[in-house]
């Protein structure tokens, strides 16, 4: 036995064990639900789903694995409006999330900058932000659909409205809390306001702003699934709903897996970006 294993190796081993235990208990649970097949017309049995054939309604890990592998090997097929590859559906969702997110950033960061610079603006706008922030983004959906009259734009709007708050609040906070010393240095050097904004305040507040962005993209990815379930048509949310309508639990579970993976990657990307602007005091 070696005792010099790096900590990550131990953690990895433990992760694999946890995964193994989870898959095994899932498999056993599915096995225990299996009963004898009811005698009936095979065509009717096909219509009634797996339970009629004596199988559990819950797919086994192997079924889900097969399904996921099928999606991975053929992600971009397009067989009509209700049967598109998961890659296409994810691409739709990601495009919507990124559009809404960047539009929100485009407004939230400069606006937060201005609010953060002014004590009065901070106090004046605080009640509005506090009131609008806790509203579930989906509550905006009917209003968006009514005014915009386009489901695609409406879901982008919902992403926009839910990602704007964390970015706005964090930018304001970051800008308002730039160390007095650094601003004084800029003042004693007679640095112009623009130069102070870009060379001092922005880099000083950047880590806080990036944290806000990271929170925002997480919320946006949570919300897009629900929004697409409502508006339908395309996207991973619609895919989940469609699989549910098809009674394909296998499809739903594999979609959950892909939603998780994409959410993780988005978060990772923002975390990376955050590390680029981080500084140690």
């Amino acid at each position, binding site marked *: 036995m070696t005792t010099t294993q790096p900590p990550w190796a131990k953690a990895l081993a433990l992760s694999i064990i946890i995964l193994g235990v989870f898959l095994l208990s899932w498999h056993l649970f599915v096995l225990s639900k299996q009963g004898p097949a009811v005698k009936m017309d095979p065509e009717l049995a096909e219509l009634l789903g797996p339970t009629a054939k004596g199988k559990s309604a819950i797919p086994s890990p192997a079924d889900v694995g097969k399904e996921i592998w099928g999606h991975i090997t053929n992600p971009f097929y397009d067989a009509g409006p209700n049967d598109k590859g998961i890659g296409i559906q994810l691409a739709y969702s990601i495009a919507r999330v990124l559009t809404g997110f960047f539009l929100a950033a485009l407004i939230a960061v400069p606006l937060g900058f201005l609010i953060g610079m002014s004590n009065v603006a901070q106090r004046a706008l605080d009640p509005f932000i506090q009131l609008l922030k806790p509203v579930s983004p989906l509550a905006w959906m009917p209003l968006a659909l009514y005014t915009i009259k386009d489901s695609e734009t409406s879901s982008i709007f919902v992403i926009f409205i839910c990602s704007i708050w964390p970015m706005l609040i964090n930018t304001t906070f970051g800008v308002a809390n730039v160390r007095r*010393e650094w601003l*004084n*240095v800029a003042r*004693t050097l007679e640095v112009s306001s623009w130069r102070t904004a870009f060379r001092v305040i922005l880099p*000083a507040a950047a880590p806080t702003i990036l944290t806000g962005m990271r929170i925002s993209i997480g919320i946006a990815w949570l919300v897009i699934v629900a929004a697409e379930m409502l508006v339908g048509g395309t996207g991973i949310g619609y895919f989940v709903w469609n699989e549910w309508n098809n009674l394909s639990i296998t499809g739903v579970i594999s979609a959950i897996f892909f939603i998780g993976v994409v959410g993780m990657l988005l978060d990772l990307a923002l975390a990376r970006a955050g590390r680029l602007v981080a*500084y140690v005091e």
Partner: protein
Amino acid sequence: MTDKPIIQVQGLEKSFPTPNEKSSTQVFGDIWFDVHEGEFVCLIGHSGCGKTTMLNILAGLDKPTNGVVLVDRKDVRGPSLDRAVIFQGHALMPWMTAMANIDFAVSSRWPEKSREERRAHCQEFIDLVHLTGAETKKPSQLSGGMRQRVGIARALAIEPRIMLMDEPFSALDALTRGSLQDELVSIVHARKQTSFMITHDIDEAILLADRIVLMTNGPEARVCEIVENTLPKPRSRTNLHMHPNYYPMRNHLIEFLVNRSKNFKEEIASASYDPKKPPVARPMAADTTAALAAPQTIAM
């Protein structure tokens, strides 16, 4: 040192409103003193007498409630590149390298200079404070002493008329402080840099200052007296204490900090105190005849 005053502090007062906002507390008031060309002036006082506020007013970062600060006979209306400030904390931008921190100041001073010119200029001052090799390090990778060296280089690099220092070494350990003081002495001496420093360290004041302004305790702090440093220049930490005037100087300052700074009100009541011309003291060894020669000297 010439007789031409660069900084003239005239009747300076700073008051802050009390919490109930009905009245106000005066931190200091009726402060008058000058700093001359090429002179090094230290201001000593206990914490709470408004030393940092005073420096911020001199720097133009804060506004006095009353009175004026004149620099070259012109009213100070805001910060200026003519007055470089070395802050108590190093106040370096943590996301910039040592070089970039200095360059930020240099490019503010001379926006027309090319990158290469600025680089050469920054390098000169990095070398001056003995930081050669640390140019690309971020402040977090530097020790406390090295950070303050960058701060000093940043202030010197803009070639200011006046350097204002707010207890620049108070956050450093004694050994680092000592070596930085030595370097500051030689730099200031070589460049004939007009400087004003706030400190509560008596030895630092004796080592660096030509004149020492003594501030009484706040609130309502006043300039108690101005002490002329009787120790000859160039001074160095290694032989300072050998000079016969060292202990008279030191004792005079300690006596002030320990007793007179808090009993000053009784002291002015009994003597003819003119805030516009605070008494001047020149503490010397007893055998030196000129000890009480100055006309406005208060007997110790």
